[in-house]
């Protein structure tokens, strides 16, 4: 591996451009304490019908990444300083706010973490779903509402016609999240972004919601971007995984590659901190010591340096590029450098 380090986007070059493509996205927030570099050059792409999971601990920039693509971060104080995000060749960062032709809601649907607060308390569920169709598809209210009832039915809420006339406070959390899914799918978007869709729900409901998403994906062929910090959810849903740390992608690859051939110490740390039901694994959970770096002044070297058990001189001073491990699998870790005399395989063989 003496070739110059490859960048993530140059990784795969299919004949057809990918459905969703994000390259070198950088987002900053101005706060009283200074400027926070919340997202520091994130790139990824997503094909039709696939699911990409973005994992990482709180504050690593997962949500900011997708919200800035969707134009949902408040500006100011937020600022997208660099990068492109394209869906079906359309630039998402520039084409927003053209009435009726908006990408949001039409090409990309989104669901949020807390369904209890994410729906308008003074509007019926049916109206909130129908609203999207009225705006994007130009449906009359009657027609849009009828379609909304179908969508509610599709998300397996019983008595859809009656439920459509009810208000959010009359729904349970699981049903609200189903309604959110119905709402985000109203215009049959090609991408669904789910920002921690199950975090606020009971464990039993979580599984139902994930199954529903998987089923709908099979039927509609949409792509899903799934943000989570639950590796169990990743294993169940994802085709590809993006591991984020301190505003950067530290490892990216197929779900099996990332899980079984992890190539970054942070991914190892995450796995060690996750409960598992494998009998051969040590049952004790290992937390990752320390805390993420201060994003007001991100470190010059590797962001994980201060917490990494394999830290080297190079890690402290020089920012690691993404090293290709295998086809479609890369990681930002100096251990993969050709000149590194420590065998990366030794470190990562667990």
């Amino acid at each position, binding site marked *: 591996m003496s070739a110059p380090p490859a960048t993530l986007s140059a990784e795969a070059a299919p004949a057809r451009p990918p459905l969703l493509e994000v390259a070198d996205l950088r987002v900053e927030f101005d706060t009283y304490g200074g400027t926070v570099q919340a997202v520091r050059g994130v790139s990824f792409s997503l094909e039709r019908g696939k699911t990409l999971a973005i994992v990482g601990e709180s504050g690593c920039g997962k949500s900011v990444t997708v919200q800035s693509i969707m134009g949902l971060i408040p500006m100011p104080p937020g600022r997208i300083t660099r990068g492109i995000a394209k869906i079906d060749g359309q630039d998402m960062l520039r084409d927003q706010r053209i009435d009726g032709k908006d990408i949001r809601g039409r090409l990309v649907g989104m669901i949020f973490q807390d369904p209890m607060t994410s729906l*308008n308390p003074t509007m019926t569920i049916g109206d909130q779903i129908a609203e999207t169709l009225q705006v994007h598809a130009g449906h009359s209210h009657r027609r849009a509402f009828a379609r909304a009832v179908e969508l509610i039915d599709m998300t397996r809420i019983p008595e859809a016609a009656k439920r459509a006339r009810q208000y959010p*406070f009359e729904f349970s959390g699981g049903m609200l999240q189903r309604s959110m899914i119905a709402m985000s799918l109203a215009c049959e978007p090609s991408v669904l972004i789910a920002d921690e869709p199950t975090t606020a729900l009971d464990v039993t409901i979580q599984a139902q919601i994930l199954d529903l998403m998987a089923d709908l994906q099979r039927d509609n062929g949409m792509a899903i971007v799934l943000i989570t910090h639950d590796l169990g959810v990743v294993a169940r849903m994802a085709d590809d995984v993006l591991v984020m740390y301190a505003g950067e992608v530290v490892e990216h690859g197929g779900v099996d590659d990332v899980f079984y051939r992890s190539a970054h110490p942070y991914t190892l740390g995450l796995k060690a901190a996750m409960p598992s039901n494998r009998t051969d694994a040590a049952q004790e959970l290992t937390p990752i010591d320390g805390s993420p770096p201060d994003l007001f002044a991100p470190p010059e070297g590797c962001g994980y340096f201060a917490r990494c058990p394999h830290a080297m001189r190079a890690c402290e001073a020089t920012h690691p590029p993404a090293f290709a491990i295998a086809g479609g699998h890369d990681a930002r870790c100096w251990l993969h450098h050709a000149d590194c005399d420590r065998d990366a395989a030794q470190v990562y063989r667990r």
Partner: protein
Amino acid sequence: MLMYTLKRLLQGVVTVWFIATATFFAMHAVPGNPLTNEKAVSPKIWAELQKRYGLDKPLLEQYGLYIKNMASGDFGVSYTQQNRQVNDIITEHFKVSATLGILAVVFAAFGGILWGALTAMYRNRAPDIVIVFLVILGISVPGFVFAAFGQLSLVKVNDWLGFTLFPVAGWGTVQHMIVPSMVLGLGTMAFLTRLMRSSMLEIVNSDFVRTARSKGLPMTRIFRKHELRNAILPVITVLGPSIAAITTGGFVVELVFAIPGLGRYFVQAVQQLDYTVIMGTTVFYGAFLVFMVIAVDLLYGMVDPRVRLE
């Protein structure tokens, strides 16, 4: 909803009864009786007056009679203007006060909602800072000062124009109503603006507005259907107390602008110690406010579905 309405109305009736009772016994707890202050009159006339106002009967009988009369809407006869029914006084003068009050409430509510929404949209920019400053001023200046300066500036404006744009005092035409009702609503408007602003700031950053934006809705629709409607809710809850504040403020504005309303009449009655008018007007105002608060609560139920099914 029907049960809730009925329950609230019943509560209102009980409250009004309580006010009437408290008023009655408060007035009769006074040593002597209301006629003690009458100028020296012959014993015959004295007895006649006693009888006329039912003061010769035992207290409980008086109370029973009083409640009975109140219930049938009869407030008795004025002490100082002995040919006038209190009912006539109320019906004649309340129209004026109600017009003034309604205009003031409408002005305050619409102004408060509009300015509040505006400040939230321009947060920390020039319009916001200016309006917030004016709001603090509006909350800190007593109503009668507004009334006085309103009148003073009217005089100046009319002088400057060379003709009477708005009359300085009196009642009757639309021109008479505009400035007093604005002056009356000003303090409440400032208060509502402040409330609306903080409510808007909370709503604008709420999750469901973010959801609405993720649906790609146009800004105007998000503002109308999602932000405004939810931000107004706390404003509606304080409308009831606001109406009470405006009613009290009305006394002053009616005095300053020489408007023949019930408030001015009430203040006069207070100064002349005209007991029947004081009692009648108090109970009337009490009942009015109690039922206005109920009406506002019911209105709230119509806007907020969470209350409707309580």
